[in-house]
């Protein structure tokens, strides 16, 4: 029986949701606001909300000092490439785990996830040495491989969860109709799992876009993405808050826009199979 929802409860729930949303959004709002202040206004105490002389000076300085488009392009390539490569590997992996599981499937899944529990810095030197050995330092190709490997456990887990929701009988029927394994995955399974695949792609694109440890440690002048662009405006000695805020706003804007337009897809995918 559905629980009756009173008007008061609706108001309280809505107010709580809005409050939490505003708290979560506040740092982003403050960053954007600070990007329009001078350095002196950025550190003013008490903080200035709207009563200051708005300026675009920080954006002009950032544009003049850094090649934003180069960083942006690197971010797009690295995040997009690693996500795509991850999906190509993860779909067959998740298919086998979901539809032809072995005794050790659960163990393999847990082991894959356990690699996410290792602090990244613990493997900094081995990965760096491999990169040096194979001439991959400061290359987008190297970064794509590393980010794909980092996110692969999440991609496989997510796809495995979505695939488990799809009745195996449908695949069986396709097999009986003469579909090969490739056709079964490509023409039967994948179209049915499109919402799940889309949300996996989006989430992993966002994760790869925001990844800041490997992208800072394995790049220099050529492959550095927007995380390095932001890091170049941070300083413990000297006031760069307003310029840092402008750089941060420019770095997060593309992913914010992408998230905004794809939020329905994202929510639908993330809640896929959550309620039965």
């Amino acid at each position, binding site marked *: 029986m559905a629980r009756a929802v009173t008007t008061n409860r609706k108001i309280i729930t809505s107010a709580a949701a809005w409050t939490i949303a505003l708290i979560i959004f506040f740092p982003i709002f403050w960053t954007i606001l600070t990007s329009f202040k001078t350095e002196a206004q950025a550190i003013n105490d008490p903080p200035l909300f709207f009563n200051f002389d708005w300026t675009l000076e920080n954006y002009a300085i950032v544009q003049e000092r850094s090649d934003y488009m180069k960083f942006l392009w690197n971010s797009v390539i690295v995040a997009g490439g690693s996500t795509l490569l991850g999906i190509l590997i993860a779909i067959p992996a998740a298919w086998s785990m979901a539809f032809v599981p072995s005794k050790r499937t659960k163990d393999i899944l847990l082991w894959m996830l356990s690699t996410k529990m290792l602090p990244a810095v613990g493997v900094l030197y081995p990965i*760096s040495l491999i990169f040096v050995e194979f001439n991959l330092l400061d290359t987008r*190709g190297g970064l794509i491989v590393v980010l794909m490997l980092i996110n692969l456990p999440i991609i496989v887990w997510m796809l495995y969860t979505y695939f488990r929701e799809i009745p195996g009988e449908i695949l069986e029927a396709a097999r009986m109709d003469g579909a090969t394994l490739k056709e079964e995955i490509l023409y039967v399974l*994948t179209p049915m799992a499109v919402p799940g695949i889309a949300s996996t792609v989006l989430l992993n694109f966002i994760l790869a876009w925001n990844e800041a440890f490997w992208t*800072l440690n394995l790049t220099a002048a050529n492959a550095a993405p927007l995380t390095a662009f932001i*890091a170049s405006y*941070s300083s*413990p*000695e000297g006031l760069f808050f307003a310029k840092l805020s402008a750089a941060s706003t420019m770095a997060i804007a593309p992913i914010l826009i992408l998230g905004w337009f794809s939020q329905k897809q994202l929510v639908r995918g993330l809640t896929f199979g959550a309620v039965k």
Partner: protein
Amino acid sequence: MSLRTTLCAATAMTLVATSGVFAESHSKTITIATVNNGDMIRMQGYTDTFTEQTGIAVEWVTLEENVLRQRVTTDITTKGGAFDIMTIGMYETPIWGANEWLVPLDDLSAEYDVDDILPAMAGGLSHDGTLYAAPFYGESSMVMYRTDLMEAAGLEMPDAPTWEFIREAAAAMTDRDNDINGICLRGKAGWGEGGAFITAMSNSFGARWFDMDWNAQFDTEAWANTLNFYKGMMDESGPSGYATNGFNENLSLFNQGKCGMWIDATVAASFVTGDDSTVADSVSFALAPDNGLGKRSNWLWAWALAIPAGTQQEAEAKQFIEWATSKDYIELVAANEGWANVPPGARTSLYENPDYQAVPFAQMTLDSILSADPTDSTVEPSPYVGIQFAAIPEFAGIATEVSQEFSAAYAGQQSIEEALEKAQAITNEAMEAAGYR
């Protein structure tokens, strides 16, 4: 469009987009890793002049100080070769020089006039008498104070104050009703933040990190006196939340007129007298305080340019270093942006220049630098080189942990005795593991 076509198209686009990733860089291009601060950013702005003169293009990788340290350390220890020039400090240079990870700068041209580098800087950037990094700018620390508040308190700042005077003046200048704190000091955890300040301060109280056998010395009275004095003075006259304040937080407070005194890097002098300061007209300077034990509490630091061994562009990198740390570069900046904006603390000739002598903080900066000796920084003998650090590879890790314990004590989360006990244990354990004890 079918799903397969979409996937194929996307894969093809990715391959095309990443196909240029292994392209070789131009042979006349050097890559420089540097720190984000005003002087370094200014240097980047003049890169075109260097390129016009030499035909050598420059790629910059600018990073936040701590990120830069991690990045260049990883690169040099794995022989990554991502950079032709690295911006490093006095802590790394002697260690890396001893490991032969850096190209010795022992063949700089006669016009460069290597003997013009301030002896304290050259000493701190050398190993066994060989220079391994050329100072771009150098700094010590000093007292920056508000002349109007000092006058209102009925006190006069000596050129070389004692800690007792500083504490007395801080109490007299504090005006909680008007949000004025008598003194602002670093308390933030981190070996280069609060750790650097308290280590330099401890030298003037007769403390040291290690005895001659590399035993930790946090169980001594000198360390207890240092921390008790610091916390007592800051609780009386410091800003709230001082345990989390670093350079930027204090700069912000000072520039808004909320600090009577601030003891910190000499490079801050141009900030507190610059356009962003609301108190620029009423700031003066004094040497960092002492306790009459023969050592002052000022540190010594330089951001310097070094060439990692194994770079393919050694000659070009040397050309750049000679240009960026030359007298001509100083002249170039002075001509375009005024003498107050030239990189300070690196060359003797700068302080002999009458134009620069007119800059209000020039003499005090020089006096502060000259009064710091990294080879003899403690009252009792110590086995290490360095003032606000000990130039051993293990120090950064140990000092970061120790400074976290100290910050917790400043914040009232533990007593000073507890913090010192933990610092003693952390340090001895790490030194034992590293084979010093």
